[in-house]
């Protein structure tokens, strides 16, 4: 049982968690750093398929080679690509075919590599979001740990239990329980008639609602 938290020793428990937050935050920052730098951008290999206007605009601005990708729209340019010099020089024609074949392979492998890079980036995002969850979960444990340094041996102390009708025209009666969670302010929990006081789950319901209210307030 964790009761009481004294296993961690009052002060060291809180001290212990504080650096955890800093470390988790640093790890998150380290993980997210590259994605915030402008120099970090995935190569737009979509232009290999001519799909990405953005990439073409960038290339046109950068060094005009983006315009050469529009050769398909100019007949005379297409004719250059289909000029066959093999009659003058068969070896050259063979070399050109070799070049085109290796170019196709290189383009396919570049596209594949880009997809792998993007799945690698997704792994980084996963780790970053897990660090966020770790932070949130630690936050909750640390706050509880912080609160358990009080004198009271009870984590939850019931101060009053009253019952009254939920409102004048309906006879149904609710039970109102005022509790303190550690040394938090009093929390009032309203339990519907269906969960009566002799129901073994009554106090679990009270504690669950009190904890929800506590977490809502401390978030």
């Amino acid at each position, binding site marked *: *049982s964790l009761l009481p938290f004294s*296993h961690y*020793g009052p*002060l060291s428990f809180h*001290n212990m968690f504080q650096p*955890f937050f800093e*470390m988790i935050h640093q*790890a*998150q920052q380290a*993980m997210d*750093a590259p994605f915030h730098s402008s*120099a*970090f951008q*995935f*190569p737009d*290999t979509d232009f*290999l398929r001519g799909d990405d206007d953005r990439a073409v*605009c960038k290339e*046109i*601005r950068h*060094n005009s*080679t983006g*315009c*050469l990708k529009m*050769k398909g*729209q*100019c*007949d005379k340019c297409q004719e*250059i*690509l289909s*000029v066959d010099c093999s009659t003058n020089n068969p070896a050259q024609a063979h*070399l*050109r075919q070799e*070049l085109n074949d290796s*170019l196709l*392979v*290189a*383009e396919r*492998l570049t596209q*594949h*590599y880009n997809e792998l890079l993007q799945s*690698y980036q997704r792994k*980084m995002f996963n*780790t970053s979001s*897990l660090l966020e969850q*770790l932070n949130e*979960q630690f936050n*909750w*444990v640390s706050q509880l740990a912080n609160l358990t340094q009080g004198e009271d041996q009870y984590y*939850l102390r019931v101060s009053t*239990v*009253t*019952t009254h009708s939920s409102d004048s025209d309906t006879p149904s009666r609710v039970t109102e*329980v005022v*509790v303190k*969670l550690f040394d938090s302010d009093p929390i009032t929990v309203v339990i519907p008639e269906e969960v009566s006081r002799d129901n073994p789950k009554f*106090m679990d319901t009270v*504690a*669950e609602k009190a*904890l929800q209210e506590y977490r809502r307030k401390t978030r």
Partner: protein
Amino acid sequence: EQLVSDNELEEMSTQGSKYINKEIQNAVQGVKQIKTLIEKTNAERKSLLNVLEEAKKKKEDALDETRDSEMKLKAYPEVCNETMMALWEECKPCLKQTCMKFYARVCRSGSGLVGRQLEEFLNQSSPFYFWMNGDRIDSLLESDRQQSHVLDAMQDSFTRASSIMDTLFQDRFFTHEPQDTHFFPPLGFPHRRSHFLYPKSRLVR
């Protein structure tokens, strides 16, 4: 009306505290489960990194082969010269017009400078560059450069994050059950090389 005696209030407080304690235990276990998930994600990342290294090798071999073929082809005297040049003189204006129309419609920024830059580029280019798909080769080399930069940036950040997580997860909070009665001294880890999320055989960048 007040329903319960002081004794009953004590009993209710005890029951409620047990519930809260269970929740605390769950929260502590939750922290450990997240750590396990981080480790799992990292193991997947490491194997993906191996796949990336292999794919990079294949890609670069293909690029080398392409450049070899290009060099061999460039070494040949430019045959079909007349045909090429005649076609090129008709290809350029069409290319310029098509490109400027596209740029004005899609890129939505000043096309004056781009037009002059394009004119200069086309006049300096040779139809052979075109005939050999020189533009596609240059685009591949550019994306190869960018991909190396992207991977390096991601690796650097992972290295830094993993050394921090390595230290964090070495803490006794993660390696001992909270029931252990040992007193947990505050954090003060012996500084160790980060191997937690990183194999010793650090990849050569």
